[in-house]
């Protein structure tokens, strides 16, 4: 690890993606993720990478599909309205089993909304968004460091499962500056290995022998029996991802908790501040922060509800979307309460504190 540098989340994730071996980036400008696009436009030409400012997010996502079809590490990013346009490409990538990373710097919605931080795209990211039976692995950072670390993690997971991975950030994480430490750049040998890792299925020159291989990158199966088999195979993959890749942070979770809070991303760090104050007063409140919001840590939440837990409180920057998953995990054992802010308004630690006090 190198020295700590002070960087915006948007730039940190871009730099980390390059260090993870990403040499192809396609995107369209939209606030509040523009520093990511601009960083890539500066850096990619210097490292013989590809930067294209696409004609639309639709085109950008399909450029990603093409580059991923060739088995190369490829990134795109956008903010909420632009992510809606990328959903076509994401569904096709899931269907054709292509590895790629998509960053969503969420802003207020619906529609054009505003440009302030929000978490209103939770449903879109975790429950579909595009058409058809598919899942996207969704990582939710809550600091600039974690945002950066997730770039290489996202590429590794995408390559491992041949599936699109989204980093679900927000305007707060993207715009604020924090100290961040980067992993080293991939060596030339590592880059060469990355370029060949998908040779068994991806589009590439015939260098293996006299017989030209015929690899098909495709999501079409016109025979329902064949498509059924394909989708069931995807289902098995998603089951494996649920077992292997569910991540969370347990903050002050112990058998004597009187309340368990659940929050992700930016909301979680605000909730942590409030919990610290209350625990300093002698309360015992824990926090589960899902790091993957799909797959979701249902069992972790279920297990965290000890004998003394009287309430589970959920905090989100939306009308209550992850709330549904928390309710599934809690399964009626204790009341699940919700506090949210919407439209790009972010709650303060004091507001969270006040809300928790109503229940303890």
């Amino acid at each position: 690890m190198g020295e700590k540098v002070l960087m915006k989340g948007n730039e940190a994730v871009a730099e980390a993606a390059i260090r993870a071996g990403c040499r192809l980036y396609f995107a369209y400008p939209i606030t509040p993720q523009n520093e990511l696009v601009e960083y890539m436009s500066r850096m990619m030409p210097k490292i013989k990478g590809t930067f294209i400012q696409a004609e639309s997010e639709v085109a950008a996502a399909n450029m990603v599909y093409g580059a991923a079809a060739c088995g190369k590490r490829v990134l795109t990013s956008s903010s909420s309205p632009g992510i809606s346009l990328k959903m076509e490409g994401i569904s096709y990538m899931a269907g054709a089993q292509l590895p790629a990373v998509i960053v969503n710097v969420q802003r207020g919605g619906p529609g054009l909304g505003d440009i302030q931080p929000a978490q209103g795209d939770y449903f879109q990211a975790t429950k579909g968004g595009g058409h058809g039976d598919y899942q996207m692995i969704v990582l939710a950072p809550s600091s600039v460091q974690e945002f950066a670390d997730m770039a290489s993690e996202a590429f590794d997971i995408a390559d491992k499962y041949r599936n699109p991975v989204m980093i679900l950030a927000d305007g707060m994480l993207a715009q604020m500056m924090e100290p961040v430490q980067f992993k080293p750049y991939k060596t030339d040998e590592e880059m060469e290995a990355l370029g060949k890792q998908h040779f068994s299925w991806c589009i590439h020159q015939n260098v293996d022998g006299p017989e030209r291989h015929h690899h098909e990158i495709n999501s079409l199966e016109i025979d329902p029996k064949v498509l059924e088999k394909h989708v069931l195979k995807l289902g098995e993959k998603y089951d494996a991802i649920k077992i292997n890749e569910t991540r969370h942070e347990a903050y002050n979770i112990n058998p004597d908790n009187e309340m368990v809070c659940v929050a992700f991303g930016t909301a979680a760090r605000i909730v942590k501040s409030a919990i610290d104050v209350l625990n300093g007063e002698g309360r015992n409140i824990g926090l589960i922060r899902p790091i993957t919001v799909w797959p979701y840590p249902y069992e972790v939440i279920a297990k965290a509800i000890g004998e003394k837990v009287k309430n589970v409180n959920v905090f989100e920057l939306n009308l209550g979307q992850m709330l549904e998953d928390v309710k599934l995990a809690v399964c009626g054992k204790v009341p699940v309460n919700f506090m949210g802010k919407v439209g790009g308004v972010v709650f303060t630690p004091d507001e969270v504190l006040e809300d928790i006090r109503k229940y303890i």
Partner: protein
Amino acid sequence: MEKIAQRPQSLSSLQFTYCPGCVHGVAHRLIAECIDELELRNSMTGVAPVGCSVFAYKFFDFDMAQAAHGRAPAVATGMKRARPEMNVFTYQGDGDLAAIGTAEIIHAANRGEHITVFFINNAIYGMTGGQMAPTTLPGMKTSTSPYGRDADDIGHPIKVAEMLNTLDAPYFIERVSLLSPAEINKAKKATLKALQYNKEERGFTFVEFIATCPTGWGIDPVKSLAWAKENMLPVFPIGNFRDKGAAQ
């Protein structure tokens, strides 16, 4: 015994899924023959569209990708940029390229992507059952223009080759027809030239094929050829629009 005709290596042995009298098969064969002749097969890859030729990824015998409707030029852009050592083409119909994919084709051409686009223009949506295309002729009846295309209401046919010819970047733009053996021979020359330029990394190359759709038009295959000659060629004149190689 000497073999004087055989399936090009670049075509798979699968039977085409096209209707009797359809000229997609002719276009496929021309492209495959040219790829073989230029010895490009080992580094060749293509993008299949949505439409009748959706299965083109099975018919060409090298690595192929299938794209979302209209997005083939964007997918091809990603492929060419990811593996510049490869030669990339798209194969698209008029609904795919000139309606839903208008933005993608214009911007790929405008960036001068080093890809070849083969555009099959038969003035109708074939796969979905004969609906109006952006290239449907004025007055032409289709399943969604049952009273004939009213150009004042829904617009005139889009002339893609002419439109792309307004851009600076494209290297080669030609419109050919597949309406007679002589025209097919000329079409092969344009195809070969486009792929030769592709091989030489000259820039964006584009070949538009005027084609028929006997099933969609409700005209028998032989009469379709005459109908296209009489009605389509005045609107979509064949010829070379741009050849930066010839100018050199």
